[in-house]
């Protein structure tokens, strides 16, 4: 190929420069959603099916590493709270599932397609139902915005198309790539974490999900503050895959103020939480 044919024309460069400058102009720790992500949501049923099937395999892999809490009453309660918050999700095409995991870590995870997990120590740190709803809302937001699917590095065709090809592929190569994609998703969940901006967006959308479904929208801020002040090694684990607490708390404060989410006097339901989570 003649290398000159690869040279971008000045006009195209100008367009790309405008595009890049638009992307770069967003403040790094802003809670506001990236417009580009919100406007390019055109998924085919095959894309969504692939996301669900892939997420199901990731969820089964998580359960291969950790056991579920052996208490059906608590599991059912967490599901009721999760289903309540999921009503406000922008992914009505998905079924959401919620599960409490036995673990020594304070954390929560979301696999693509609607599979949400929370650990028993995280549940133990909560004081009311709105805080449980807040953590589940944060995870629902990750699913809603397909953060993990976007973070996967599957071929050059983009993650959505790549996933659909992977789930339908039968060749040795696609099997290897599928296996690698599952490993990559697990690595994001348990080691590397998502992009800082993804976490801040999940915090922000989580507060909206809470307010829309009638829970106290300040619940995530209260819970994070408590985890932060607990000063345990659990805190360090949670910070390893998430932005620093002071950044998250500051972003949440800005959002609660800007979006009129303070002083709403929405329920926290502490008594019901105690009754349903304590033996």
């Amino acid at each position: 190929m003649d290398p000159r044919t690869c040279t971008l024309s000045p006009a195209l460069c100008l367009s790309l420069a405008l595009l890049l400058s638009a992307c770069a102009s967003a403040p790094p720790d802003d809670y506001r959603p990236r417009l580009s992500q919100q406007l390019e949501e055109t998924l085919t049923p095959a894309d969504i099916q692939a996301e669900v099937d892939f997420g199901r395999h990731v969820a089964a892999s998580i359960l291969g590493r950790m056991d579920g809490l052996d208490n059906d009453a608590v599991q059912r309660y967490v599901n009721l709270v999760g289903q309540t918050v999921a009503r406000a999700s922008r992914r009505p095409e998905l079924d959401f599932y919620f599960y409490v995991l036995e673990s020594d870590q304070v954390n929560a995870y979301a696999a693509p397609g609607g599979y949400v997990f929370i650990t028993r120590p995280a549940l133990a740190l909560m004081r009311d139902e709105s805080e449980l709803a807040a953590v589940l809302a944060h995870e629902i937001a990750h699913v809603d915005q397909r953060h993990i699917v976007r973070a996967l590095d599957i071929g050059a065709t983009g993650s959505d198309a790549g996933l659909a090809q992977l789930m339908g592929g039968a060749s040795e190569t696609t099997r290897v790539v599928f296996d690698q994609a599952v490993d990559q998703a697990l690595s994001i969940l348990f080691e590397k974490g998502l992009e800082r901006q993804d976490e801040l967006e999940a915090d922000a959308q989580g507060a909206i999900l809470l307010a829309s479904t009638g829970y106290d929208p300040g619940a995530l801020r209260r819970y994070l503050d408590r985890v932060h002040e607990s000063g345990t090694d659990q805190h360090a684990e949670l910070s390893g895959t998430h932005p620093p607490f002071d950044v998250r708390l500051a972003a949440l404060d800005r959002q609660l103020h800007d979006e009129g989410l303070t002083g709403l006097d929405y329920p926290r339901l502490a008594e019901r939480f105690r009754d349903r989570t304590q033996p």
Partner: protein
Amino acid sequence: MIQTSSARRWLTGLCTGLLISLLMSLSALADEVFVLSEVAPVLDAPRFNATTLAEPPKGTALTILTNENNWLQVDYHGQTGWVSRWLVGTEPPQAKVTHLEGELDADEVRLRASEVTTAGAIRGLSEGETEFGGGTDYAELERMEGLQPDPNELTEFQRPLTAR
């Protein structure tokens, strides 16, 4: 000849650039959004502590008048109000997709497990092991999927939240 070729590249680049800009502008100025959430109040000001004017059902198309940060000013049946961007989208809601539709039968599950094992073997991993460690537990996953509440129980559960 070189000048003609250069001019053609300029023209092609210019057209491509304009097309990209046009497409971006059209996207940014989408004049309609759809309610995707089951709860998306239209408020009289761009903040959640404002007065609720209407609660359009999921799938409703709303005409965008303007926007402010995370809020869209919309027209809904002649009423002007504000809706949060987090509750709407530019495409109508899609039909429900569940794992049951794409669920593999028992033979296919075994085949898929075999495929994954084969893929792992290619990469030097033993049976049932992924690079990240651990295998899969579909029995536990089915327990998780079986915990979805009855709709009547869910409605009753939500009463303290909707009674405000």
